[in-house]
Each structure stands twice: as structure tokens, then as C-alpha cells.
């Protein structure tokens, strides 16, 4: 068992000062996680507001204008302040450890990237306090609704906040790319990188290339709204569909930014908990790169019904992108097959990811067919699809990562019973909430409507979905309780509680500031496994 050989610095610094001024990637990673969960819970409360309004027909609980703010801010918080940053946070914590580096390439820029996020969140939420309220035209901010004549200062605050978040992401992506390419330990060649690191690499490329396009769109909209610009406002000679094109050029790669690292997390968890190497490592790498590349060529599948899109190109590319995704699915299943499974909470969430993301992928494939999309565009079918991939997919993967790496980060194990209760509640609650939405979409219920007539025939399914959302809300309790009591008095974890494969398990829990006292020999993508089984260190190691 590795022990730390260096003693801590003699000067006293308060814990608060340490956390606020840290440039240590591990602390910054934890800051990302905590900050992101705060916005997850706020976004969740906004979702409860949405579901309360939709629980019964002809509901007047919230005014339509406030309802629009609720769903706009729900999505904006979840996408920009929860899912994208939390994955950056996991990568921040884990990537330098997994490549055997002492920190990220640019530690101070790393800290800057983090601190821009709570600032941006406060700016965005401040919209609720200004006249006219928060941004209310959907997280997609289409014109003309997003123009100054239909929206207030809240939208400008939203634009500033998202620009800050985008800048934070771009700086982070530069950091990750330089770190991954330049700071690997000796023996850690590119094709021995853990899949999590590969997914962080491709995600960083996507962030680097796509996010600036979003920034340009946000700035153009800001100019339209505040300086009399004529980009997107038809009344001024502008083109509303132009916004959709530029925005979607970002937002489609963005969904891969929101899922690839999760796929990396699942690719770490499945081998460890089935005691088998990941099936098809190289195929995974190429599939990830393929998804990243193809992800740039499908953006207008969000715009099939505008009448301005060359439909066959985008439909074809969208179907094509299902291929590398399917390759990954088969590889994960092959990893589990004939494995010796330990059904600990990380594996449960990883299995939940596999099943839920599969459903989300399939209902997305339906929408890739243009005639189907013509019928289902902007209905609850799409709401079902996006939640199956982003909640069933990304969030379940995030929880898998939390349960898997919590011992490494804190030195304590999470309680398994509470973990299983959490899993059961969120899995059931999630499906009860979102499965009915497939049916609602097929029955024609449009999305983003503040209320619906009782004669439309949507009453029971909506009520069911709202009940499901309460179950999801309840699932937060065992999770939070588990985290709190485990931090205080959880079982000590030791270096390697799960018998892991990758380098983070070769150091203490939590690691010392400089990460490693001693690195095992790196001859494969599973250096800790190799060391544990005597395959390296002069015992005929193989790569």
C-alpha cells in the first residue's frame, strides 16, 4: 500500500482559503462536482415546477410567462451548469491521475475555468430578480422570440452567463488537450490510455471547435438585441433560421460533449465490476473519434421542419452516427458477457445507463427518418428522447462515477444499502416520468406548452409523469444522506477498494497533492491490474 512520504507544509492556512485559492486539479475537480450538483438540484426544483403545472389540465398554478422561464432555466441550468461542467470535473480529477501526471498543464487556468462557473450561474439566475423575469424563450433561444421586443434583461443576463460558461469550457479544453498529449508518464502511450482519457480527449476537441461557434451566435444575438443589429430579426432584414443553423452547429456536437465522458466512465466501471478487460479497446477509440467527427455533420436534423434544409444529407448522416454508437453498445455488452459481476452501486448505475441510453438511442434513430420527424418534431416524443439520453444516459453515468470514485476522492466508502435505494428510486422514478412522454408525443402533445385542455386525452399520462418526478425528487434524499454520513464516518477505503485497473488506484485515497509517490510500470491500459497480478516488474509483462 502506498504511503505518503512528504509531510505537509508548516504554514497554517484555513480550509476555506485552501479551497478558494487551490490550483490542485483534485480539489478543482471536487469543486466542479459540488458546484454542478448545486445547479442540478436547483434545475430539479425548476423541473418540479414544470411538472406541477402540467400535472392536471387547464392548470393556473403558474402564469404562462413564468412557466416559460421555468422550462428555459431548467434546461439552461441542467445543460450549461450541470452536465457539461460535471463531466469536466470528473475529467479534471481523474485524467491527470490516470495518465500518471502530477497535475494539469495549466493549473491556474484550471482554477479560472472553475470560478467562472458559479459566477455565470449567479448571473443567469439573477434573471429571476429583474423586471420581466429570467430568460423565457427556451434554452435554444430562437428568434424572433429572443429579440428585444419580446424579451427583457433576463435574456441579456442569460447571454452573458452562457458566454462565460463557454469561455470556461474552451479554456478547459485547451488544458485537457495539452495535458493528455504532453504530460503522460513514461510507458503511457496513446493506445494504453484508459478510455475515460480518450473520451476526455475527443470531448475537448469538440468543445474547442464547437463552443466558439456558440459564442459567435450569442454575440450576434446580443448585438441584435442591444445595438440594433439585423442578424436574426426578420423585421430588420435578418434571418431567423440563420440563428438556428449557427446555434445547432454548436448544439449538436454539444450533446456528444454531454455523453462521451459518461461513456468513458461506464467503460471504466464495467471492466472492474465484471473482472474482465474492456472488449474491443481500439474499436472504442475509433468509435469515439468517429462520433466526434460525424457529430459535426448532423446539426440540421433539429431543423427538418423549417423547409430550408437539405433533408437527405442530414438524415443519412444521422443514421450513420448510430453505427459507432452501436459498436460501443456491443462492446460494453461483450465486456459484461461471462464476466464475474459484482452488483455494487457503480455497476447498477452503469447497467442503468446501458439500458436507458439504448432506449434513448433507438427513439432518436426513429426521429432520424424525416417523415417520422415531421410528425414528432417539437412534441413530447423529443422530450422523452432527450431525457432518456441525458438523464437515463448522462446522469446515470454521472452517478456511476460518483459511487466509483467517491472512495478515491474522500478516502471513505459510500454506504451500499443507501446506494441501492437511491438507484432503485431514481431508476423507477425516471421511467415513470419519461416513458409516458413517448406516448404523449405520439398523441400529438406539443412541447413547451404551459397547459393543455382536459379534452385532449393527455390527463392520465401527465399525472403519471408528475408522480414519477416526485419519486425522482425523493431519490435525492438517500443520495445526499449517504454522502453526508459517509464523509463523516464511512468505512475507510484504502488505496484500491474495487480492485481497479487504472493508475488512480495506485496511490492513496485521497491522493497526496503531487499524486504519486511511486508509479507502477506501465505496459498496458491496465497497469494496476498488471502490477497486482505480477505481470509487470520483470515477470514477463505483456502489453
Amino acid at each position, binding site marked *: 500500500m502506498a504511503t505518503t512520504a512528504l509531510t505537509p507544509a508548516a504554514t497554517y492556512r484555513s480550509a476555506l482559503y485552501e479551497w478558494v485559492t487551490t490550483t490542485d486539479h483534485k480539489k478543482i475537480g471536487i469543486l466542479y462536482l459540488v458546484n454542478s450538483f448545486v445547479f442540478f438540484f436547483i434545475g430539479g426544483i425548476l423541473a418540479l415546477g414544470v411538472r406541477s403545472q402540467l400535472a392536471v389540465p387547464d392548470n393556473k398554478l403558474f402564469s404562462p410567462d413564468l412557466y416559460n422561464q421555468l422550462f428555459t432555466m431548467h434546461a439552461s441550468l441542467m445543460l450549461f451548469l450541470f452536465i457539461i461542467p460535471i463531466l469536466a470535473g470528473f475529467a479534471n480529477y481523474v485524467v491527470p491521475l490516470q495518465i500518471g501526471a502530477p497535475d494539469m*498543464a*495549466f493549473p491556474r487556468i484550471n482554477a479560472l475555468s472553475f470560478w467562472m462557473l458559479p459566477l455565470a450561474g449567479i448571473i443567469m439566475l439573477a434573471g429571476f430578480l429583474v423586471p420581466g423575469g429570467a430568460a423565457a424563450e427556451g434554452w435554444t433561444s430562437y428568434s424572433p422570440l429572443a429579440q428585444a421586443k419580446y424579451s427583457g434583461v433576463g435574456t441579456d443576463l442569460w447571454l452573458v452567463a452562457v458566454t462565460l460558461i463557454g469561455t470556461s469550457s474552451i479554456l478547459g479544453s485547451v*488544458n485537457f488537450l495539452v495535458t493528455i498529449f504532453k504530460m503522460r508518464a513514461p510507458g503511457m502511450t496513446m493506445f494504453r490510455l484508459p478510455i475515460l482519457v480518450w473520451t476526455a480527449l475527443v470531448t475537448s476537441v469538440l468543445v474547442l471547435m464547437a463552443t*466558439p461557434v456558440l459564442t459567435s451566435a450569442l454575440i450576434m444575438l446580443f*448585438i441584435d438585441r442591444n445595438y440594433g443589429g*439585423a442578424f436574426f430579426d426578420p423585421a430588420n*432584414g435578418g*434571418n431567423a433560421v*440563420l440563428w438556428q443553423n449557427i446555434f445547432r452547429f454548436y448544439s449538436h456536437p454539444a450533446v456528444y460533449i454531454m455523453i462521451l465522458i459518461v461513456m468513458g466512465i461506464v467503460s471504466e466501471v464495467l471492466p472492474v465490476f465484471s473482472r474482465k478487460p474492456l472488449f474491443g479497446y481500439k474499436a472504442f477509440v475509433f468509435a469515439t473519434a468517429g462520433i466526434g467527427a460525424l457529430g459535426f455533420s448532423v446539426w440540421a436534423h433539429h431543423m427538418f421542419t423549417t423547409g430550408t434544409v437539405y433533408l437527405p444529407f442530414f438524415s443519412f448522416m444521422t443514421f450513420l452516427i448510430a453505427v459507432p454508437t452501436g459498436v460501443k453498445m456491443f462492446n460494453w455488452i461483450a465486456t459484461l458477457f461471462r464476466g464475474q459481476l459484482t452488483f455494487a452501486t457503480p455497476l447498477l448505475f452503469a447497467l442503468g445507463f446501458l439500458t436507458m441510453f439504448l432506449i434513448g438511442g433507438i427513439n432518436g434513430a426513429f426521429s432520424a427518418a424525416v417523415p417520422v420527424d415531421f410528425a414528432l418534431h417539437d412534441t413530447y416524443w423529443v422530450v422523452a428522447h432527450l431525457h432518456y439520453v441525458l438523464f437515463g444516459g448522462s446522469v446515470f453515468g454521472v452517478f456511476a462515477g460518483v459511487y466509483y470514485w467517491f472512495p478515491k476522492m474522500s478516502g471513505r466508502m459510500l454506504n451500499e444499502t443507501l446506494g441501492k435505494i437511491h438507484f432503485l428510486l431514481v431508476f423507477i422514478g425516471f421511467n415513470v416520468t419519461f416513458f409516458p412522454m413517448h406516448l404523449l408525443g405520439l398523441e400529438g402533445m406539443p412541447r413547451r406548452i404551459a397547459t393543455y385542455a382536459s379534452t385532449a386525452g393527455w390527463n392520465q399520462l401527465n399525472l403519471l409523469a408528475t408522480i414519477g418526478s416526485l419519486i425522482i425528487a425523493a431519490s435525492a434524499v438517500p443520495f445526499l444522506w449517504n454522502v453526508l454520513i459517509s464523509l463523516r464516518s464511512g468505512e475507510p477505503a484504502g488505496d484500491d477498494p474495487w480492485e481497479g485497473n487504472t493508475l488512480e488506484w495506485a496511490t492513496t485515497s485521497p491522493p497526496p497533492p503531487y499524486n504519486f509517490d511511486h508509479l507502477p510500470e506501465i505496459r498496458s491500459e491496465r497497469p494496476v491490474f498488471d502490477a497486482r497480478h505480477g505481470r509487470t516488474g520483470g515477470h514477463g509483462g505483456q502489453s
Partner: protein
Amino acid sequence: MPQTAHDGALADLPRHGISNPILGMILFICSEVMFFAGLFAAYFNVRATAPIWPPSVAEVGPIAEHFDLHAEPWLAAVLTIILVSSSFTCQLGVWAIRRNDRRGLIRAIAVTLVMGVIFLIGQGYDYSQLGFGLSDGTFGTTFFTLTGFHGAHVLGGVIMLSVVLFRAMSGQFTARHHDAVEATSIYWHFVDVVWIALFSILYIIPTR
């Protein structure tokens, strides 16, 4: 001359690595290419969907008379020459410090900085003479957004050059350690390339 693989920040030694800060700057520039791509995409889309470009007097009124940038490209052409030359002088500075010629570096960066400032002043003067503004329809909006953000990037470059000049004058750079000079010059070349694209697209290529 660099002796080992680990010498300083010498980007022209292939297969021995680029230093982290310079690699970081190159990647950041890739992101900036995409930022300008969004702005250019908007411009080309607006231009392609307009019945005639620039918009005619019949469409938008007398202000359209000012839209014919091809009639008087002279000031813009002078600005182009200034910016391209400044890229050259900047590179002279890089070559100088690679030879440990600190005074050459200071001279070259100072000249580059002055030319950058002249560019900005000239751009400001050009703006004042154009006769149309940001809120004058699609033409005004796209023109000022594109050139304005380019100008903002030039300003950023001018600030970086000032910092480099200050540090050079304090003797902080040697042949082995001058990452900031290399990174700044790469950024400055990028700003120049964007201007060449802008100048060609807005002033040179024929309109419809």
C-alpha cells in the same frame, strides 16, 4: 542553437515537442478560427439570401450609396499593408531572440506594436468615414461585427505585444526561454491572416 530535446520553446524542432504554453496558444487559435467561422457563416448566409448584395438604394434607402466598399478600398489596402508588414517585423523579433539577440527583439517588437496601434487608429478613422453604422440593416451589422471583432483581437494582440515588450526590456527573455514571444507572435500572425480573409471578402471579391 538548441542542444538537446528539452531546450526552451523552439517550435521548429519537429518530433521533439512544442512547449506547453505554445501548444496551448495554437489550440486556442483553433478555437478562434471557429469563432470567426460563425461570424463569416452569418455573413455568407446573409449575402447569399439577399436579392442583391450590397443592398440597393431601392431596398434600404439612400444609405446604400455608402455600401460600395469596392469604390474606395485605399485606406483598407494601406491598413492591410501595415498589418502584413507588422507580422513580418514580429517574426524578425522571434528570430532575433532565438539567436539571443535581445536588442533585436526589443526593436522588432516595438516596431510591431507601433504598427498595430497605427492599424487600430486607421481602422477607427475608416469607421468614421464610412457613412453607415452597426444598425444600418444587414450590411452594416455584418460589416461592423466582422471588422469590429477583428479589431478587438488586434487590440488583444497589442496588449500582449506591450507585455512582451516590457518583459523584453526587463531582460526576461533568452534564447532558451522565450515562450511568451513565440506564443504572441503566433497569435499576431493569426490576427493578420484573419484580416487578409476579411479584406479579400469585404473589399476585393466581386459582389452580386
